[in-house]
């Protein structure tokens, strides 16, 4: 077993899938160009939650602003990469693999997990909550765990009667546990089956141990972050958590849609950190919230379309808080491709910041190069 301590740095990634509209998240409400270009989809000055006289949070981000005001949120303004690809799939791939010029199957967190647990001893070093493993977490030979439902995780989970499930699992163990020498593929299957059983045994203690006074809301991101909290507070050695919130592809209907997503997200993140604090488990947790791209500067009447430069957020007790990099220019001659916010910092530099300054690993081999970093952490 890899040795780990309760205070090893832990990193939680929250992916906002679909491309979040950064301009309506952190609103440049003092800039007339914002209202000129966002004729329909703007947040009125009186509605924003001001932060420094020039920028303000979306009104539904109040619980998030609370964390910001406590100094727990370092905002990365203008995050992106050159020649942004507006495809969700490809865009997300690039964020997941750090490989904008080629198609890669190696996820950046797959590389991170491999370095944190080189011999793959703890299948819970990296845990994803959701259906299917994101490419960011995948690397051949690096075991990670993907959980769609923590309370029913594991084999035979569809057999609802507990006693019968136990019986079925025992038979599964008998079937997979004994074979040696019946061919390399059959042996490999046996080993894998037994690994799955033991991984599920490890993780099932998490829901059993967990108690909290924090009441999360009833929505997918709140449920996922509660699962992260349950596994983190169970001290199973998980260093990398991954989860996502979908629905940000707001070509139309942005006005009714985005506030609901923000309400769910900001409440869930706030509850999550309150939960960790209650468990005295927040000192070693940093969260990155990102989206595959920002949205177009001009709205289209009822929504916004795929753009490039966006924003990311590093959240947690270890953060120094405040604004980093620069808000992309709203001046027309600075727009990318004549219609996008130009990015002001490369996402690989932010990954590098986390990899080196938080996880204590070398960034260059993971993000494939040296990119400008920021200093978003509190000095100890």
């Amino acid at each position, binding site marked *: 077993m890899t040795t780990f301590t309760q205070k090893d740095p832990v990193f939680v990634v929250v992916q906002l899938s679909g491309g979040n509209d950064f301009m309506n998240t952190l609103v440049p409400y003092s800039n007339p160009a914002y209202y000129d270009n966002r004729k329909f989809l703007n947040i009125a000055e009186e509605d924003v939650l001001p932060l420094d006289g020039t920028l303000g949070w979306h009104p539904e981000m109040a619980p998030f602003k609370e964390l910001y005001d406590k100094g727990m949120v370092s905002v990365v303004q203008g995050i992106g990469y050159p020649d942004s690809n507006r495809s969700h799939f490809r865009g997300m791939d690039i964020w997941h693999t750090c490989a904008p010029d080629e198609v890669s199957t190696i996820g950046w967190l797959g590389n991170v997990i491999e370095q944190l647990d080189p011999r793959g001893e703890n299948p819970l070093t990296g845990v994803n909550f959701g259906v299917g493993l994101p490419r960011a977490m995948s690397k051949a030979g690096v075991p990670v765990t993907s959980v769609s439902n923590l309370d029913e995780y594991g084999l035979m989970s569809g057999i609802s009667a507990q006693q019968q499930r136990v019986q079925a699992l025992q038979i599964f163990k008998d079937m997979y546990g004994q074979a040696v020498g019946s061919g390399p593929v059959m042996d490999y299957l046996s080993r894998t089956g037994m690994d799955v059983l033991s991984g599920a045994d490890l993780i099932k203690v998490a829901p059993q141990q967990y108690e909290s006074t924090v009441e999360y809301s009833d929505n997918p991101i709140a449920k996922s972050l509660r699962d992260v909290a349950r596994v983190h507070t169970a001290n199973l050695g998980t260093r990398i958590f991954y989860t996502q919130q979908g629905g940000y592809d707001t*070509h*139309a*209907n942005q006005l*009714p849609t985005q506030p609901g997503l923000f309400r769910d997200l900001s409440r869930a993140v706030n509850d999550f950190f309150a939960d960790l604090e209650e468990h005295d488990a927040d000192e070693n947790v940093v969260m990155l919230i990102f989206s595959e791209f920002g949205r*177009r500067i*001009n*709205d*289209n*009447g*009822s*929504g916004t*379309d795929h753009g490039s430069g966006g924003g990311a957020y590093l959240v947690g007790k270890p953060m120094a808080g405040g604004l980093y990099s620069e808000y992309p220019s709203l001046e027309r001659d600075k727009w990318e*491709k*004549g*219609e996008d916010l130009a990015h002001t910092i490369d996402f690989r530099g932010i990954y590098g910041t986390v990899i080196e300054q938080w996880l204590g690993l070398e960034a260059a081999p993971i993000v494939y190069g040296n990119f400008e970093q920021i200093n978003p952490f509190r000095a100890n």
Partner: protein
Amino acid sequence: MTLPFELLRSGYPYYMTLGQRRVTSNPVDIGFGKENVYVLTRGGLGTEVRVINWEDENLGTLGGASLFQWPAALLVDEDENLYVTDEANHKVVVMDKDGELIDSWGEQGSESGQLNRPSGMCFDLEGNIVLSDAMNGRIQRFTRDGKPLQVFGESGEGEGQLNMPWGLTVDQFGDVLVADWKNDRIQRFGPDGEFKSAIGSHGTEKGQFRRPSSVAVDGHGDIYVSDWQNDRVQLFNKDERYIQSFHGNASLSRSGKQYILSNLVTLRLRAEGDFEKTQRLNAPMTVKVDDQFRLFITDFGNHRIQIYQKDVVELSETEIAPKMRNPILFTT
């Protein structure tokens, strides 16, 4: 109620297009309130009732997964209550115009009054509900609160038999016209459910159908059929003679125009594309007509509503020559 003896058909000038992808996504049916237009949508881009107005503004959604799973038809009554058939749960769901559930009735089965995948639905002349009980191959009539009144038809291919009926309508004489989907025809039944006539057969020629999904009748007795798999709407006159087909003439809706104008690349691509393609119908699901003789087509595959305005002169018997037995070449 009488129909005009004959019509001088001027045509169907294109009236307007409503909606766009992600607003009126995958529209299956349409209904009208006093000011608003209700569009029932079903598919990967949303299953709900979308509310828009005649200025093509998006006013939000009603219903959704908590109320219905496979909605097939929408009816709006005089109080703007909305009736939706749900063919997954074998129910009719009723909500008010704010989306509050006010009633729900129907249970699965094949007994009289029970349902197996209710699909098309319309009001009859008394305001009762007539619906296609698709998997049972029959038509049923109910009061608005679900009390069974009448059942007719049975599964099969013969006259008066039905195979997976879908859309239907009641004309001004109380006849029930049914899109007999899997039999590729429209059947007309009298008010008592007796078979009267059938239109069409399987195929792609004029007057033929590939899986007709809906039928409507206007105040002149003209019959409109959405010929789903042939991507067209066909028009038959009151004598069930083929008149013409609609393949779609969409223009840009107001929201669509706004969308394109704010996207440089979309503007460029549209400037260079084959424009005709953008006008055509794709899997039109429902046709409806209103008392102003406007024709509404839910252009399902294109996420929009295409609307035509009928332009005719009504003729009495004395205003037109009598029918001739022999064709003539001298026609000046």
